[in-house]
């Protein structure tokens, strides 16, 4: 019956939602990575990703792990773990996230508690359609140093400077990756076989090790 193509994400937003209700929702749907909940002082976005959204997300996560491995850097993939700070009334569940510089601090942890643990070093956000509200202020408040955002066409690297994100050409947490290299690889992932694509990512990493400066 359906003649309308489903968008890459389904999003709904609820207003005036209390922190306790947000916590009830998180508790009820614990261990589900989708839909993903984002909370900012009463505003609650619930986003359901499409297979297209998840495909980009997984490829980018694989790229992070492959590059880190070739550069001999530890990167722990914590997927869509829930991060929340009741004192700030903010919380989010990223498409993917990684502990890189702080990997050792969370290595033996079963749960992340932002009251004592650091935030992830890198967050991946896929927005094929416009988000209901920007999540950058939440990431900034929680102190995420770097965000990679993909809008369906372009990858952008955003680095936390003070309390705002600034777009930069080159990643800090995973140097020497650049937004151009990321955009090119994601574009290639649309047509290439996964294994061949991953091999190309690895080759690029080996060629660029230590040559970032």
């Amino acid at each position: 019956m359906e003649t309308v193509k489903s968008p890459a994400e389904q999003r709904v937003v609820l207003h005036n939602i209390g922190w306790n209700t947000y916590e009830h929702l998180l508790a009820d749907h614990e261990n589900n990575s989708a839909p993903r909940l984002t909370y900012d002082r009463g505003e609650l976005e619930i986003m359901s990703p499409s297979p297209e959204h998840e495909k980009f997300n997984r490829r980018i996560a694989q790229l992070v792990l492959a590059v880190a491995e070739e550069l001999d850097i530890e990167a722990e993939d914590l997927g869509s773990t829930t991060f929340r700070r009741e004192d700030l009334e903010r919380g989010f569940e990223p498409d993917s996230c990684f502990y890189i510089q702080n990997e050792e601090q969370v290595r033996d942890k079963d749960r992340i508690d932002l009251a004592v643990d650091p935030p992830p070093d890198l967050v991946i956000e896929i927005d094929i359609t416009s988000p209901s509200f920007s999540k950058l202020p939440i990431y900034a408040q929680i102190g995420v140093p770097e965000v990679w955002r993909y809008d369906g066409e372009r990858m952008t690297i955003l680095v936390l400077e003070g309390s705002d994100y600034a777009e930069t050409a080159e990643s800090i947490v995973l140097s020497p990756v650049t937004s151009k290299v990321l955009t090119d690889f994601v574009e290639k992932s649309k047509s290439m076989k996964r294994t061949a694509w991953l091999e190309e990512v690895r080759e690029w990493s080996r060629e660029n090790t230590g040559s970032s400066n």
Partner: protein
Amino acid sequence: MESVKNRAEQRVLLRNISWETYERLLDERGDSRVPRLAYDRGDLEIMCPSSEHESVAYFVALLVAVLAEEMHVNAYGVGSTTYRRGDIGRGFEPDASFYIRNEERIRGKPRIDLSVDPPPDLVIEVDITSPSLDKFPIYARLGVHEVWRYDGTRATIFLLEEGEYVEAGESVALPSLTSDVLTLFVQESTSLGSTDWLRRVREWARGNITG
């Protein structure tokens, strides 16, 4: 970024949601008509309608008002009222709903409480995209006699028969209205101006309603 968003609804489905969490969400969202929540024993669908979705719901509600008037029948529109029954773990918020046969019992009530009040006689459901939660079993359990559903191309009239909805030749709530006529009027609502459209609906009613 994509532009399809405009035509379609936005829907998300959450699983394993407790009745308590569902009620909290309803309370905190308050009297806003959007987003609309449907709940069936742990499954919670939250739906944000598009403007096309809302427009169809509006014109169908207008049609109900005009036909009821021409038939000298009272129709009490209660819009997207929340209908819920904690005892059976189900609830929904239709795109539009009406009390017709039970109009007198509901007229003027500030709130509907299904533990004492009857369910609506007619529910309108617009689905430009496939729902993530089938609401028909909820309507059936709550005892809604008649459902009109528009799927983006066609409107269909369903009647509750022995716990299941079956496609009906014509409406019981507003007799002589068929799915074809309803479909035609929904389609015309996008091309005609509202005054011409209303006139057409009224003319049809005068020409086709017996008695």
